[in-house]
C-alpha cells in the first residue's frame, strides 16, 4: 500500500526490466532499445559493480556518521539504478551538475569518495575540483534546493555559444545533465531553468529523481500532476522511467543526451525511485512513512533486479562475490582515509573568498594569525 504517496502511474512509464528483473521492455521503450546495442556484457557488469560499490560506500559513510566521524550523511540507498544508468550514459565532454545525493555519479566520473565524505566531515565545502580533467566535469554539490538547475542551464547556454552543439562531430558535441529531486520541482529556480532552457534551446537533460519524499513531505504535496508532465508546459518534452531499472535509466538518458548534443534542445526525465533510508542522518523516516510503502519499494530494489537479469545472462556467482569484495575494499579504504582527514589550515578560511586580492580578508587573516600566535606555541 502506498496510500500516503500514490501518484497515478501512467501506463507509458519506460521500463526494460520487470520488477523481478526479467528483461521485458515496455511498449513505450521501443525508441530507446537501440541504445542498448551500445552495451556489452562488460558494461552490464560495470553497472552492477557501480551500484554495489556505492551501496557499500553509502553504508560505510552512514556508519561513520553514527560513530561521530561525520557531521551528517546523505544516503543514496535505493537510488543507485537511476544514478548509475544516467551517469554511464554521459560522454566525457558532458558536464554533470549534481544536487547532493549523487554519490555514484561522482564516483563514475572520477571523484575520490573521500572527497565526498570530507564535505560531510566538515573539512571542505567542495570536496573536489571540477576543473581537474580527472574529475570528468562533475560539478560541486549544491545544497540550496534546485539552485544548480540554473547553473547547468547557463553552462549549456555557454556550450551552445561556443558552437559545441550539433556540429555532427560526436566527440565535440556536448550537453549538460542536471540532477534534482521531487521537492526541487516546487522551487522557482527549477522552473526558471525550464524557462531559460526552453527559450535558448540549451543542450541539456533535466534528470529528476522522484524518490517520493522531500524529507518528510510526500511528492503529492509538491504536485498533483505527474512531474514528467510539468516540463512539457514549458516546451520541454518529458518522459517517465522506472528509475530502479538501470537499463532504462541508461538507455533513456543516452538518447536524450544524444538529442541534446545534436541540437534538439532540452528534455526532462522523471526517474521513479525511492529513498530507502532517511533524507539525511538527522531524520527519522518512521515518523512519516509506512512499512508497507518501504516493503513495496524493497521488492523493486535496483541491485537485486539487475542481479536477476545478469544471472539470466549467465553471469556466475564468482562475479557477484568479486563485486562484493571490491565494494568492501572500497569501504575499508574510505573508512581508513576518512579517519586520517585533518582539519583544513586556518588560513584556508580567508583564502579564495575572492579571486583577486582583497584588503579586508587579508587584514582579517593577518590579525587572526597574530592573535593566535599571541598565545604562543601551537595554538
Amino acid at each position, binding site marked *: 500500500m502506498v496510500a500516503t504517496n500514490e501518484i497515478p502511474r501512467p501506463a507509458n512509464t519506460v521500463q526494460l526490466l520487470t520488477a523481478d528483473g526479467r528483461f521485458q521492455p515496455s511498449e513505450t521503450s521501443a525508441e530507446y532499445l537501440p541504445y542498448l546495442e551500445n552495451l556489452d556484457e562488460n558494461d552490464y557488469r560495470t553497472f552492477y559493480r557501480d551500484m554495489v560499490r556505492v551501496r557499500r560506500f553509502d553504508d560505510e559513510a552512514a556508519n561513520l556518521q553514527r560513530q561521530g566521524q561525520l557531521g551528517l550523511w546523505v544516503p543514496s540507498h535505493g537510488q543507485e539504478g537511476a544514478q548509475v544508468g544516467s551517469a554511464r550514459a554521459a560522454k566525457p565532454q558532458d558536464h554533470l551538475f549534481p544536487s547532493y545525493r549523487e554519490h555514484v555519479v561522482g564516483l563514475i566520473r572520477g571523484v575520490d569518495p573521500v572527497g565526498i565524505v570530507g564535505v560531510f566531515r566538515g573539512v*571542505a*565545502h*567542495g570536496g573536489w*575540483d*571540477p*576543473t*581537474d580533467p580527472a574529475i570528468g566535469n562533475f*560539478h*560541486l554539490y*549544491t545544497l*540550496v534546493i534546485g*539552485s544548480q*538547475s*540554473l*547553473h*547547468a*542551464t*547557463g*553552462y*549549456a*547556454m*555557454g*556550450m551552445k*555559444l*561556443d558552437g559545441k552543439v550539433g556540429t555532427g562531430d560526436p566527440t565535440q558535441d556536448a550537453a549538460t545533465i542536471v540532477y534534482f529531486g521531487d521537492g526541487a520541482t516546487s522551487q*522557482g*529556480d527549477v522552473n*526558471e*531553468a525550464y*524557462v*531559460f532552457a526552453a*527559450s535558448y534551446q540549451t543542450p541539456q537533460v533535466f534528470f529528476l529523481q522522484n524518490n517520493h519524499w522531500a524529507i518528510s513531505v510526500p511528492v503529492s504535496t509538491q504536485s498533483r500532476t505527474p512531474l514528467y508532465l510539468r516540463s512539457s508546459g514549458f516546451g520541454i518534452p518529458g518522459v517517465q522511467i522506472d528509475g530502479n531499472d538501470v537499463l532504462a535509466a541508461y538507455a533513456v538518458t543516452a538518447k536524450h543526451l544524444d538529442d541534446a548534443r545534436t541540437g534538439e534542445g532540452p528534455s526532462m526525465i522523471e526517474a521513479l525511485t525511492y529513498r530507502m533510508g532517511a533524507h539525511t542522518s538527522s531524520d527519522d523516516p518512521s515518523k512519516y512513512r509506512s512499512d508497507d510503502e518501504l516493503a513495496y519499494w524493497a521488492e523493486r530494489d535496483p541491485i537485486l533486479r539487475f542481479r536477476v537479469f545478469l544471472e539470466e545472462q549467465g553471469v556466475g556467482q564468482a562475479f557477484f562475490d568479486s563485486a562484493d569484495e571490491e565494494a568492501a575494499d572500497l569501504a575499508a579504504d574510505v573508512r581508513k582515509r576518512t579517519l586520517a582527514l585533518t582539519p583544513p589550515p586556518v588560513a*584556508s578560511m580567508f*583564502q*579564495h*573568498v*575572492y*579571486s*583577486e586580492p*582583497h*584588503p*579586508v*580578508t587579508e587584514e582579517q587573516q593577518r590579525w587572526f594569525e597574530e592573535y593566535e600566535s599571541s598565545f604562543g606555541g601551537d595554538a
Partner: protein
Amino acid sequence: MSEVRSEADYSEAEYVEAELIEGEPGSDADENEDQGGDESSPDAASSDSTSFDSADFDSTLLDTQAIDVVEIIESDPDARVLEEHVAEQEWTREFVIEDEPGEDPSPAPEATVDAPPEPRIQSLPMVKALNAGLRRALADDPRVLLMGEDIGPLGGVFRVTEGLQKEFGTQRVMDTPLAEAGIIGTAIGLAMRGYRPVLEIQFNGFVFPGFDQITTQLAKMTNRHSGKMAFPVVIRIPHGGHIGAVEHHQEAPEAYFAHTAGLRVVAPSTPHDAYWMIQEAIRSDDPVVFFEPMSRYWPKGEVDLVENGTPLHASRVVRTGTDATIVAWAGMVSVALRAAELAAEEGRSLEVIDLRSLSPVDYGPVIASVQKTGRLIVAQEAPGNVSVGSEVAATLAEKAFYSLEAPVLRVSGFDVPFPPANLEELYLPDADRILEAVDRALAY
C-alpha cells in the same frame, strides 16, 4: 510584476527620455493605454528604434513635452526639486539634439571603439558613458556578454544598452526571460564556461528575486571551488531616488550586498567614473554589484576616454576642505557637493569624499581627511539602520578616534519603506540635512 514595472516607465524623467528617444509621442490617453505594453509595444519595435532616426525627430514635440514636465515640476512646493528636474530636462533636450545624425559633425562616442576617441574629453550623461564603457568592454573581450530584461532592441528602460545588440548581435546582448534568479543563475553557469556576463537588473527593488542566487551561490562559488574557478559576473543595478517613481524603483539596497562576503560593491557618481568603473568591474575576476545612481543618469559630465585616474576600489576626495568631512557615494555625492558650496557661502570649509567602492571600502583617504578636519558626516540615501554608513562610522571611530572632535554623524534615509514619490524629497537627505549635521558636529 509586469504591471508594476510598466508604471516605472511613467516616472517623469524616464518618461521624457523614453518618449524623446523613441520619437513616439502619445496623447495622455495613449500613455494610459500603453501601461501593459511599455515601450516595447509593436509601434516602438517597428520603428527601428535601436538607432535614432532624424526623420522621426520632431523638435516641437520636444518642447511641448519639456513644458509638460516643467509644469509637473512647478506643482512641487520644493524649489530645489524644480531646479534639478529642469536641469535634467535641459540636458534631455540638448542630448537628443546632439544625437541626431547629420546635424552634429562631431562623431558620437559610440562610433569610436578601436580608434582613439575623438575628442578625448567628451561631455556625456552617465547613461551614455555607461553605454560607451559597455561597448568598449564588448569590443575588447569576446567573452563579455550582456544579459537582462529589455536590454536588446529597447536598450534597457534607461537606454544604457541602446544600440549594443544591433552592434554586437543577439548572442552577445541577450534579452532574457523576465526572471531575476534565472538571469543570475544562468550567468553563474556561463561564468563557469568562461564567459564574463554583465547583467542588468531593471530596478533596484527587483533584484530580490535573484538575491538567493547572488548571496548563496554567486558570492560563495569562488570559495566553494577553493579558487579553482573564477566568477566574473557584473550585476548592474539602478540605484537611489529623486526620479519620482513608484514603489520598488528608488531604493538603495547596497548594505545587503556589502554585508555578503565574496561580492564587490561599487557605485560611480559621475559619468567619467561610470565609464571607467564599468570596464574595470567587467575585467575583475570577482562578482561585482554595480550600482548606478538614477538621479545622475542624465546630467552631463566630462569623460576622459583615454585616462582613468582612479582604481575601481579607491575612494577619492572630490572637494577639499578643513572644517568637516562629508563621505558620500552614488547620488549623494552631488548633494554633498551642493552642501559644501552652501557652507562655503557661510564661511565653512567642507571636504567631500566620494567613497566609490562600498565593499571593500578604501578608508585611507577618509582617515586622512578626518585627521585633518576632526569631524565626519556620512551621507547616504539608504536607511541608516545597519547600513554602509554605519560601517564607515564604526570604522572611523576605531581608526581615527583621537582625531575626532565630535561623534561621527550619519545622515540617512529614514528607517521606513521608501515613501510615495510626493514625499521622496523629504525622505531623501538633502543639502540642508547634511548642513544640519555639520552644525551639530561643529557644536562639539
